[in-house]
């Protein structure tokens, strides 16, 4: 029982990075832009969060700086993909390279040193003291509740139950129709891509301020790409995306527990689990249920730039 509680606790910790980054990607992809720069954005966010905390020991400030850096990087990406309408795949790869390279270069002086100020777990009276549930669900930092509870519900209501959300989806499905209805396609895409990038970089801040309290160049380890894959698996829905993030947090946690309990499997092999699991989740559902394809379909105009004179 104790192992399971620890497993679930770690699943929330590890899954938070994927969940927050996936939420950001949901925002961008719902308005029709695929952002493959998540990996680089997480690296930038993770590095700048640690750099901030080194100067002033306030984790919230570090988290906000990470998001701010992500917002700026996202706006640069959005200028290229939304306004200039350059190829989204190339720009996304470029953003990943730039983010990883820049974070590793600038973060060299702080690489490896432990983070002095991290987010503390908050103690909820009664709930945190429950025997099993307390450890599994109610001994986390505030950010965990924000990522797994507040944000997904808020985004779900925004996207599926407001007029603004309907406009968002219209821009992603059929920008020409949205344009004709008086919605500014450019504005919508620009701001949601930028905001999504801010969340992705925030995931980086979460990574170094909550989960692994130190920065090193390999710390992101493909989490950005897993997040992009999870968004597809989650059918571009915020609540599903967070649940998928949690599932992968669980897979990661399984690897940790295996190492801690000296399972007769090499640590490297256990570390492969999240990547292999993501592969399986991308391929198996599509093969198993034909209906899934329609139900979980991508926005119709994903990766297609919008030219007003070509509709």
């Amino acid at each position: 029982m104790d192992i399971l509680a620890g497993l679930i606790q770690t699943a929330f910790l590890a899954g938070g990075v994927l969940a927050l980054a996936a939420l950001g990607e949901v925002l961008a992809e719902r308005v029709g832009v695929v952002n493959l720069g998540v990996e680089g954005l997480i690296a930038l966010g993770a590095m700048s969060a640690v750099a901030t905390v080194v100067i002033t020991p306030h984790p919230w400030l570090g988290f906000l700086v990470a998001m701010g850096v992500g917002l700026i990087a996202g706006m640069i990406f959005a200028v290229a993909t939304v306004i200039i309408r350059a190829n989204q795949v190339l720009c996304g790869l470029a953003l990943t390279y730039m983010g990883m390279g820049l974070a590793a270069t600038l973060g060299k002086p702080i690489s490896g040193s432990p983070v002095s100020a991290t987010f503390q777990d908050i103690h909820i009276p009664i709930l945190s003291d429950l025997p099993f549930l307390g450890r599994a669900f109610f001994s986390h930092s505030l950010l965990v509740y924000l990522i797994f509870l507040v944000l997904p519900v808020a985004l779900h209501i925004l996207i599926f139950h407001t007029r603004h959300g309907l406009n968002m989806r219209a821009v992603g499905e059929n920008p020409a129709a949205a344009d004709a209805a008086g919605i500014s396609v450019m504005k919508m895409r620009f701001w949601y891509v930028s905001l999504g990038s801010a969340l992705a970089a925030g995931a980086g801040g979460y990574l170094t301020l909550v989960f692994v309290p130190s920065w090193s160049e390999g710390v992101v380890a493909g989490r950005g790409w897993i997040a992009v894959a999870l968004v597809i698996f989650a059918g571009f829905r915020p609540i599903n995306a967070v649940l998928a993030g949690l599932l992968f947090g669980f897979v990661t946690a399984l690897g940790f527990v295996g190492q801690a309990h000296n399972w007769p499997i090499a640590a490297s092999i256990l570390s492969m689990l999240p990547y292999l699991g993501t592969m399986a989740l991308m391929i198996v559902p599509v093969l198993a249920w034909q209906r899934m394809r329609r139900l979980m379909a991508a926005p119709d105009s994903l990766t297609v730039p919008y030219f007003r004179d070509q509709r």
Partner: protein
Amino acid sequence: MSYRLQRMPVAAPSVLFSARVLSVILALLTAAAVLALSGKDPIALGGKVLSSTFGSRFGLEDLGLLFSPLLYCGLAVAVGLRIGAWNIGAEGQFNLGAFAATGVALFVPGPAWLLVPLMALAGMAGGALWILIPTLAKAYADVSELITTLLMNFVALLLVYWVATGPWLDPSGMALATTARLSVSVPYVWGIVHWGLPVALMLAVGLAVMFAYTRWGYEVRIGGANPGAAAYAGMPVQRHLILVMLMSGAIAGLGGMMEVAGTVGRLQGGISNNYGYLGIMVAVLARAAPLGVIATAFFMAVILNGGIVLQSQGLTTHTVLAITGLILFYAAIADEVARYKLIPTTGKVTPKGAR
């Protein structure tokens, strides 16, 4: 006379070429500006890179060793792009090629003239195997190869790291994280430059000829440019897709074999050194043309060598990755901007308000 901007369906090759060159120059200027802002002298650093790369035979040999893996990875990505597949997994296939070749060298006894070709075959098979699942998933379930090929990279890196530190660890106890030195190696052709480089150059020429002059190459190109039209014309698009993607993996795998058996001499974690990711840029800059890859891979080798030369100046190989990203970013923008043309507006311009 007034002008207006008109977006063209395709850009002229000469315009595209100048746009690419311009984007590279702009990226280097941006990097220079950042260096200057951080208190370094970009002109002196650039001069140092050029003189230590081209100024001595030693520098040129180093360049050759970087040129070779970039050629393989660039060609691997370029071949995939020809049929419209993004092989982001050259990094992983490169690792698997090195892994498979090492397996042959460590466990198969035999003379070098037999082992080296066998290792090359094993390397190609390893690379092809590593892209097999993403290929089948794309061909039969329409799963984006962009993400699946990339995820396989992490698995490959972990696999190589695991064998190099565990089961295949150098038994002599001298090394902590590498296998024993391989008993056979790819023969040298010029100084420390081995046959991997000439083979890669021949491969580039061979691929260029195949794409330009064979029916297969023609069908692959059409299949990539317009799969619907190709299928309508009776071309086996799916079969071509599978074969081309496997070929792409095999080329990257061969690169890995050459790296482990020619350059490094033993298998260790991180043997791919980001070559797979840099290969994407090499292929994109060359517009997926095999002969163009020769030029862009050479250019990339100079940049990469520059990064190594400048390590003493506080730069890391990651700085090279950032500069690569910058070039890619400008190239993507330049591609789009190159399509616009200034067209003089002829005829009378109706004044505002007049009917």
